């Protein structure tokens, strides 16, 4: 089996220093912390496992499908975008995903030349983050499984560093938590890349009502209050 091509781009896109605005999103951690649902590393472990299997899987599935679509000739970008909307019931989470997609687009356009990227934008306006990610992965020469890995990793890396900042958790313990997810992330990438060729409507649709509700209450309760993260 050939190794990953475009490895540098894959690593850069996964890096938290990639300048697409990800650091201002906590993925529900800020709200969970404010409600006392996360107070220590044990709680964070449960949160991250749950997030990876739900929001992380959805993102990975669509990143892989976008990477696959970008590699082919007839991509249904509006279909993919709409189906991801349908799998994201919380308006706050949809807004967060589109905001991060826009940020990734800004950074991506400065670094990549891609016809698929232009097509994605001209047909969807403000595409969801996983779609932009998948297109950039393909533009780099990497594959659908790489796109899924990066999307899945994002779903837990940002929230874990938000927890470190908000609770002052031991960074080594939190980093060890991330590494605990190694097998989970591999399984998720396998699942996501196996479905990458399906029509948008047939893509998996795992739900995470608790995360949806956290995102909504974060948006509502903190509109007039101190809020450090955008989601």
């Amino acid at each position, binding site marked *: 089996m050939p190794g990953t091509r475009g490895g540098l781009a894959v690593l850069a896109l996964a890096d938290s*220093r*990639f*300048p*697409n*605005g*990800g*650091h*201002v*999103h*906590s993925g529900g951690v800020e709200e969970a912390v404010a409600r006392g649902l996360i107070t220590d590393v044990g709680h964070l472990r449960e949160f991250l496992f749950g997030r990876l299997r739900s929001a992380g899987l959805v993102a990975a599935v669509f990143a892989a499908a976008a990477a696959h679509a970008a590699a082919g000739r007839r991509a249904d970008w509006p279909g993919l975008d709409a189906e991801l909307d349908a799998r994201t019931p919380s308006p706050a989470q949809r807004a967060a995903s589109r*905001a991060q997609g*826009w*940020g990734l*687009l*800004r*950074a991506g*356009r*400065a670094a990549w030349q891609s016809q698929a990227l232009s097509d994605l934008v001209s047909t969807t306006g403000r595409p969801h983050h996983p779609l932009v990610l998948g297109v950039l992965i393909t533009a780099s020469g990497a594959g659908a499984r790489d796109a899924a890995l990066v999307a899945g990793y994002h779903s837990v890396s940002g929230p874990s560093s*938000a927890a470190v*900042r*908000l609770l002052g958790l031991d960074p080594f313990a939190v980093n060890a938590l991330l590494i605990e997810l190694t097998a989970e992330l591999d399984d998720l990438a396998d699942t996501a890349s196996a479905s990458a060729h399906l029509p948008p409507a047939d893509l998996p649709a795992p739900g995470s009502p608790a995360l949806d509700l956290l995102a909504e209450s974060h948006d509502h309760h903190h509109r*007039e*209050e*101190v*809020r*450090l*993260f*955008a989601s």
Partner: protein
Amino acid sequence: MLPDNTRPHGGNGHGHGHRHPVNFDPTATEPDPHAQTPWHGRPFRLGIGGPVGSGKTALTAALCRALGGAVNLAVVTNDIYTTEDADFLRAAGVLDPDRVEAVQTGACPHTAIRDDITANLDAVDRLTERHPGLELVIVESGGDNLTAVFSRGLADRQIFVVDVAGGDKVPRKGGPGVTTADLLVINKIDLADHVGADMAVMVSDAHRMRGALPVITQSLTRTPNAPDVADWVRAQLAVPLGV
């Protein structure tokens, strides 16, 4: 539309070809080949940074009062107490609430103005869409340490505000804010006697650290419209960027 600054050098980042960056011919009339954020009719972006409590919001309000009549302007604030800053500007009657955008910095204010400026550029974009013809956006950083400076991708010019009450050793400590900002403001000089700060030392240290870059001392309680800083900002606005 993405803002034009995604391609700050006009294309692939190698726009100045093989020319020497400095032309020593005093009669040359060719355009300045230095990489500059181009001025393409987008608002001028002025960063105001400095430690917590040094007077960034007070200076922002002063500039809104001094310039607001003649310049179409708006403000982006990165403070934790975002609504408080917006409330302050509203209460001061210096700016319509819809001309203030608050940015969440993910508990990392220097990242949001320097390493990953996405959230701030998004806020600037929202203001620009809402207010056609916007000429100036003032971006107030969250209060941060002496190493926090604005990315040149976000701020066309930046002011670093320190205050006398923070101690007269601050300019000597240096750091990129003090040494590289386009303007250093030493604020609250009215408090110098109360805190035993030696203004002469502070100012001479500041000049020693900054070489030719300008330093302004002021008190916003004595001169609430910050006339010297406002003059400096007017001068910056008068020069099209990249020319």
